[in-house]
């Protein structure tokens, strides 16, 4: 099929505009004062929203909580999902399907339904309104996503690598450290990034399980929006994207020159 000249470039421009225009709007709104329709440009610009975001103690607490929850969710869900995915991949097809179904349910269930169920569970554990309770709630969808990722990874894993290393004299710990782990660097980096992002952007579960007692950045942004503080909400929303981009970038750098070995 003959391609139209420039069609690809046009598609790239449109997609880029589509993806970046909300961010551009957020940036403009975050530094604009009294910018109302139909004015094409803001009459004045300032950094008050950003200053408030950085200096306000409640925002700093929310940011700290979000980062803490993100890191803990990423590490814990990766540490749990990796052996779970491996065990599932080595199991019978029936066990594989069951684990995949459970993992998918954690991802696919409506967040409100999942949140209410988790709220009752966390309350029963005496962790309602606590950071630990919210962490447990964040772990559920993160574990679902990451188990599916690691199930896929280990279904394609070349088990002959382990056999070759074993008969060359490598004990299981050495095989893990010298063969498996270096080859799993990329999926582990991706899993850590995804685990962080699942927690970082979580609103419904944090709200339901935290009961408003656990402040996170997404909840703060939502509250500012509801209060009509558009300039600060825009700055907060942009601030939400920065760690996400850093995490994704770091995952790519960490995974450089690695690949999953396919049988």
């Amino acid at each position, binding site marked *: 099929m003959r391609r139209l000249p420039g069609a690809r470039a046009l598609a790239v421009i449109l997609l880029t505009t589509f993806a970046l225009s909300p961010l551009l709007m957020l940036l403009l709104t975050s530094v604009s004062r009294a910018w109302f329709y139909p004015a094409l440009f803001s009459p004045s610009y300032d950094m008050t929203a950003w200053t408030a975001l950085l200096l306000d103690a409640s925002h700093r607490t929310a940011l700290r909580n979000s980062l803490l929850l993100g890191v803990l969710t990423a590490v814990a869900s990766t540490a749990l999902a990796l052996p779970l995915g491996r065990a599932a991949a080595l199991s019978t097809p029936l066990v594989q399907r069951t684990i995949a179904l459970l993992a998918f349910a954690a991802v696919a269930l409506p967040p409100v339904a999942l949140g209410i169920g988790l709220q009752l569970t966390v309350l029963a554990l005496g962790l309602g309104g606590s950071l630990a309770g919210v962490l447990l709630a964040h772990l559920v969808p993160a574990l679902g996503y990451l188990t599916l990722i690691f199930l896929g990874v280990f279904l394609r894993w070349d088990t002959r690598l382990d056999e070759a*290393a074993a008969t060359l*004299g490598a004990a299981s710990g050495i095989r893990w450290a010298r063969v498996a782990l270096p080859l799993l660097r990329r999926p582990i980096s991706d899993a850590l990034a995804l685990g962080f992002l699942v927690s970082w952007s979580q609103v419904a579960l944090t709200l339901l399980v935290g009961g408003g007692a656990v402040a996170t950045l997404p909840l703060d942004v939502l509250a500012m929006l509801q209060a009509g503080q558009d300039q600060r909400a825009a700055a907060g929303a942009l601030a939400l994207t920065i760690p996400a981009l850093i995490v994704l970038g770091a995952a790519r750098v960490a995974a450089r020159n690695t690949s999953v070995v396919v049988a």
Partner: protein
Amino acid sequence: MTVALSVRGLHVLFGGPRTSRTNGTVSESRLLVNPARSQSLIVPAGYAVGLCDVSFDVSGGECLAVLGESGAGKSSLLRTVAGLHPAAGGSVHVHARDVSALLPEQRSIVYLHQEPVLFPHLSVMENVTFPLTIRGIAKAVAMRRAVEWSDRLRILNVLGANPSELSGGERHRVALARALCADPAVLLLDEPLSSLDPAVRRDVRSALLAARAASGAAMILVTHDLDDAMGVASHIAAIGRSGDLSVPLASSVIVNSPPSLDVARLLGVFTEIPGAVVNRNGVPRFEWIGGAIPAAGFGEGSAIACVRAHELALGPTCDGEQPVLLVTARREAPHELSIEVQSEAGSSATLRLGLGTSVMPGDRVQCTVTNARLFSTV
């Protein structure tokens, strides 16, 4: 030479734990695997006996080639000896030490897969030194050993490369060098030559010979190719259809005197001539459509004569007593000629001959068999 590997009464099951239930109980069977020793094996439901009562010894520096059809259990034999597949019975001894209960990494047995498995995240040098560095041997010493083996196996020029940059033959030689760096007592080679083109095959075969000569390890080479077996191994054994392993014999011996028709068929170098042993005036003879040959010691009944190409000669019809055969078809292969012959009674046979034989379809010939191995099929 001392025995490096001794396998005794090894049983290997194939299949998986599928539970076929009858009247609420998992059905399993008890199989008498060695009547002489009243030895039986419990076979769980869903499993079948793959290898049965396999015993053999291999001395250091020797190579035993194991022939067998696809699915006969050749790879399973190696994997069981290496500890990668569970044995249902029997024992494996390495230098008189029972390693049956040990993990693969504790057996001093290196298993080489059919496709060389190199660690893709390590360079060739790191691959070759892997068995040494994991034992805590100093890097300089490990590299010196790696260079020694790499020199013998002619891979010095690729030591700095990544595995993905290697050709097929180089990958085999690197895997072999890495295996030899582990200084194993036993080296198991799972059809290393089967997927290679002729030039690479010769290359890897010479590497295997070099390894055999220099390492002192006992080697088992699994193959379905007699040329590979004879080119590398000192002894040959064959896995039969019932999962048994024939007694290992020197390569020249097994080719001249295969112990059974199954083994003869696996060797793939014989013309199989169907016929029958009949007793004429107290003298047993094997009679077939092309004539008769002595069959001393054989009872009457149907039999098969296995004849090599150079033991079969065709000539013009001159002997009035000998049956005349009509050549009906001729097929040339790279190393031999195959012809179809038909007797006056309409029976036919396929004969494999040397390439120099100049017979054409329509020719009438008489056949002389100078040597044959007879197997009763009664």
